[in-house]
């Protein structure tokens, strides 16, 4: 038990170190964008008809703490993010980032995790079936679909669906809420409305991940299915679904669980593009706004850190699940 706690501690520390490295890189990137907050604020005042001088900018820099050395600012920012969860203000929008992102984060994460679940629900059974079956048509279909997942990126997939629904059904599938619910408080009706619209982006987000997971599951099953322990089990008279689930599927589940974090990574990568095409007003498109159209480095940094933190957290959880599931690791740790 102590060993197990030790294992969890080591994993937790490693996750935190990863996050620290990432947030340091993100902060450095934010700094590299030309122009700083003080100049932005002052430039805004300038448009209001005020005359500004170099001293004004310097005073503003002092007020925002921008005159301090680089490393100190980096650690202050990282400290705020880690210990208080505060991302500060966005200079362009002049709004608090936490306020701005609060429910958009949950929507984005919910949709991404929905897409992740969908992809595994589809990929695991189909992958196992295609590895086991000797049916060439089914096999080739699965192979083709998983290749298409790469060649037909989700932005194209989303685009096709959008175009077809708009042209042939006259109804645009864009947006996450209908008009009457957009600003309403969360309720059962709003949730149902959300579900009735969110399935499409979830499907599109899950599309690429499904194709990849399918390939992984299939390859792992193919590796396991010819091994001696499966033959031995078959010799003992176990067959069919019983054999599959108890022996090779269990073995190949480990690497699949391991890959969850990277699949989530992939989904997050698709998120902004799909969000832009489907005009979803959640996190993904906010990132595009922040970067492409206004150079809002604070907002972009915050979103990057949040996305990465989610992936790190998922990796941490899957590591522990894996340790609990695998008897070899479990016995080593729990004694």
């Amino acid at each position, binding site marked *: 038990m102590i060993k197990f706690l030790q294992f969890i501690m080591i994993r937790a520390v*490693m996750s935190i170190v*990863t996050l620290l490295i990432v947030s340091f890189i993100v902060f450095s990137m934010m700094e590299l964008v030309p122009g700083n907050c003080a100049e932005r604020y002052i430039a805004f005042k300038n448009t209001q008809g005020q005359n500004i001088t170099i001293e004004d900018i310097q005073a503003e820099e002092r007020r925002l703490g921008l005159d301090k050395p680089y490393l100190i600012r980096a650690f202050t920012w990282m400290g705020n993010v880690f210990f208080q969860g505060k991302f500060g203000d966005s200079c362009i929008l002049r709004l608090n980032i936490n306020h701005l992102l609060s429910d958009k984060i949950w929507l984005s994460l919910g949709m991404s995790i929905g897409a992740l679940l969908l992809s595994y629900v589809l990929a695991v059974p189909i992958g196992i079936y295609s590895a086991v079956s000797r049916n060439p048509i089914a096999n080739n279909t699965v192979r083709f679909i998983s290749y*298409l997942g*790469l*060649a037909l990126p989700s932005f*194209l997939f989303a685009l096709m669906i959008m175009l077809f629904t708009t042209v042939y059904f006259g109804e645009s599938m864009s947006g996450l809420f209908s008009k009457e619910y957009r600003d309403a408080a969360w309720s059962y009706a709003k949730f149902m409305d959300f579900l009735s619209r969110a399935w499409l982006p979830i499907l599109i987000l899950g599309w690429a991940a499904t194709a990849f997971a399918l390939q992984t599951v299939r390859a792992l099953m193919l590796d396991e299915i010819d091994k001696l322990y499966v033959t031995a089990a078959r010799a003992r008279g176990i067959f069919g679904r019983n054999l599959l689930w108890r022996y090779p599927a269990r073995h190949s589940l480990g690497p699949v669980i391991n890959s969850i974090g990277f699949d989530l*990574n992939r989904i997050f990568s698709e998120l902004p593009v799909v969000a832009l095409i489907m005009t979803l007003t959640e996190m993904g498109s906010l*990132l595009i706004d922040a970067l492409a159209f206004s150079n809002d480095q604070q907002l972009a940094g915050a979103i*990057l850190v949040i996305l990465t933190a989610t992936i790190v957290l998922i990796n941490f959880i899957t590591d522990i699940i894996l340790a609990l599931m695998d008897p070899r690791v479990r016995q080593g740790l729990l004694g």
Partner: protein
Amino acid sequence: MGFFFNKNKKSDQQLKEAYFTASQVELIRSRFKSNKTAMVAGWILTILILMGFFSEFLSPYQPTMAGRDKKYENGPPQIPKFWDENGFSFRPFIYGTKRERSIKTNFRWVVTVDREDRRYLRFFVDGWEYSYIDLEWDLPGEFFDVDVQALTFSTHLFGVDKGGIHLFGTDKSGKDIYSRTLLAIFTSLKCGVLGVFIAFVLALIIGGISGYYGGWLDSFLQMVTDAIRTVPQVPLFMALAAFLPQEWSAEAVFFVIATILGFIGWPTLARRIRTHVLSERSQDYILAAQLCGASSGHIIRRHLLPSFTSYIIIDLMITFPYMVRLETALSFIGLGLIDPVSSLGSLMQNVSKADVLLNYQWYFIPVLFFITFILAVVFVGDGLRDAADPNMIKKK
């Protein structure tokens, strides 16, 4: 007869010998050749690359605004014909078009096809000039400016005697989609190759050091590599692409985009290289070289690198489609290469309106090329991987 038999036997022996003495590369090649899908994909890929490389020769018009056809905007594809109701012709022809605007057409420009006006296809026509070596760098300082133009030609594969021919139609400003598609394939290809190359150099240095020296250096480098790998790629790319000033030239943007691709792509490759190095490092021949007093640099260059070159090439081939896809996705949302530059992504940007699906379906032709291109690369990469993995034969 006996002579025949003898010869056969000998060649059998030779075959066996050839098999056992074949180098890694030869084995991979012969296994790759027996994979039909991969071979077909390989040919398609070769054709696409050649089309891209000779895009200027193959395309009758300049893919930029300079080559636009003002009289044929949003024009549908013109397919050359050999015959119609007016008779047969050995020389393929297309029809001339007229563009008019009047009360009858509700004051919109309408293009009508004049079936009486035949325009014959000509081959190896003289057109706009292009050069294969065209360096024009404006570096700081007079001395460093490079302006070299060589291998200049003006011959194009085909053209028509008057008016224009647009095999894939034209876009809204009258640019020839066929010419743009060919150039776009090459642009995306170049971008991907450059990105993969940068990623490869970084990965080789970082992964190589990490695998060869091991110890705390390895742990530290692995930690950084893993940290970068956890950041979602597209958002990271977007954050980096935001540094691009709007006023930069197309070439500069192209190089920066490729560099960013490389900087994002290296961690996965670095891990693979590290694993290769790690597994080879403990082999006896490395120990022998070390005992002979060879330096680390010598061992890495002369012993370690050749031992897994073929695997590295395959890894690069597998990474390549991801790079192209990333570039395309970014160009598509307007953060990468944008419209005046022809890349597959910037061409696809044009299809994102419902109007296009209803009226100008030929805008989708570059999308088909993109899918074919990616599929071909993926199949070739997979074929190579299967060919390099000796265990695969057993399974089949």
